[in-house]
């Protein structure tokens, strides 16, 4: 048993590195996209706001697995060839951008209206108000749900194993099918996921408590 663990661990850990890479990059993609979508959705220009709102809903309505399959299997048919890793990062990032957009939108809308008025009253223009007054406060409000989303991305990064990205779940499957040590392999994999997600969840709780004060 113990020697099995020692034998599997290096493979699983190298998968864990890919898991972290995919998750962090997907977090970046989803943040950027989500941020832009949130700003568009809140734009007073309805030619921007309505389409953005539609895009957010479509993304939120799609299973991430389908988005991943689209990236990996459908895009090549349209002449866009992505590596499995790229497809995984993009699919996960796009899949989560809808949630990120809602997090940022919620944060922006939670900022007291009096703040905008105070900024207007000293002669600030809308873009500067957004940049110097609204966003700093909105991002602060968004930190706990944002960190929470990162935990979810970390877990859902296991989905990219289905498009052959060699992350931790994928490594676990390979080992399990070669050794039939299902219990050992998947328990080990589960523990490694928990080793990553539990500290994050702890951080989320601390942030929430800290920001509530």
């Amino acid at each position, binding site marked *: 048993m113990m020697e099995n663990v020692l034998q599997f661990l290096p493979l699983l850990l190298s998968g864990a590195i890919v898991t972290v890479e995919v998750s962090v990059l997907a977090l970046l993609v989803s943040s950027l996209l989500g941020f832009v979508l949130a700003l568009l959705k809140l734009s007073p220009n309805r030619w921007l706001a309505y389409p953005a709102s539609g895009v957010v809903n479509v993304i939120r309505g799609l299973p991430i697995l389908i988005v991943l399959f689209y990236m990996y299997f459908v895009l090549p048919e349209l002449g866009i060839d992505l590596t499995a890793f790229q497809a995984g990062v993009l699919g996960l990032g796009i899949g989560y951008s809808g949630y990120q957009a809602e997090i940022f939108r919620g944060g922006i809308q939670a900022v007291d209206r*009096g703040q905008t008025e105070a900024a207007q009253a*000293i*002669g*600030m223009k809308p873009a500067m108000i957004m940049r110097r007054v609204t966003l700093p406060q909105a991002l602060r409000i968004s930190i706990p749900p944002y960190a929470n989303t990162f935990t979810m991305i970390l877990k859902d990064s296991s989905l990219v194993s289905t498009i052959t990205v060699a992350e931790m779940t994928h490594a676990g499957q390979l080992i399990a099918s070669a050794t039939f040590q299902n219990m050992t392999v998947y328990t080990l994999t589960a523990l490694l996921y928990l080793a990553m997600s539990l500290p994050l969840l702890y951080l989320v709780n601390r942030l929430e408590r800290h920001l509530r004060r």
Partner: protein
Amino acid sequence: MIKITNVKKRFGNLHVLKGISLEVGCGEVVCLIGPSGSGKSTLLRCINALETYDDGDIHVGERRVDAASRTIHELRSEVGMVFQRFNLFPHRTVLENVIEGAVHVRREPRQQAVAHGLELLEKVGMADKRDSMPGQLSGGQQQRVAIARALAMRPRALLFDEPTSALDPELVGDVLAVMRRLADDGMTMVVVTHEMGFARDVADQVCFLHDGVIAESGPARQVLEAPRHARTQDFLRRVRSA
């Protein structure tokens, strides 16, 4: 300095301002009084275009106030506003709050803005709190910082919307004292207030708003001590007994 001519405003079916005319001379202090819902805040907010109006004209100096104008921010930077709930920027220190507009809107050199900001904080008695965050201050202290923030824009006029009514009674005096000093220094001020003592001592002109019209206006002593209209008398009696 501020000229309001026959201004009308409605929210849906609710006629909030039904033709208001009012002139505020340079260096003059005008107090707006009246019952809740009479349109005092709305009128005040029309002056710096935080609210739009449907009909009539408002001029500040030579310039017509038009909320839809592309350059409305220029006018706003010349007319300061102090809010009932202070609305300090909670993520910036006291001094940063005060110099924010000077540095980023007026584009003053930072050093100059800081020097001016400290001078203003001194003036409102808050210099020792320059590095505090707004959340660490009492309401009265926050309001004095908010006044310094408005003054840092070197405004031609200041608007106050019930600046003391969110304060604990023992903190009201400090804020009113600052406002008195501003008035003495010749600042043009329009003040919505329920502080009748302040209105009587400081205001050149008092306007009693009722139901969207100025029911009575005139020199402070006349309106407050010898009101002609039954509604004004009634309102003052209720305010005093409260």
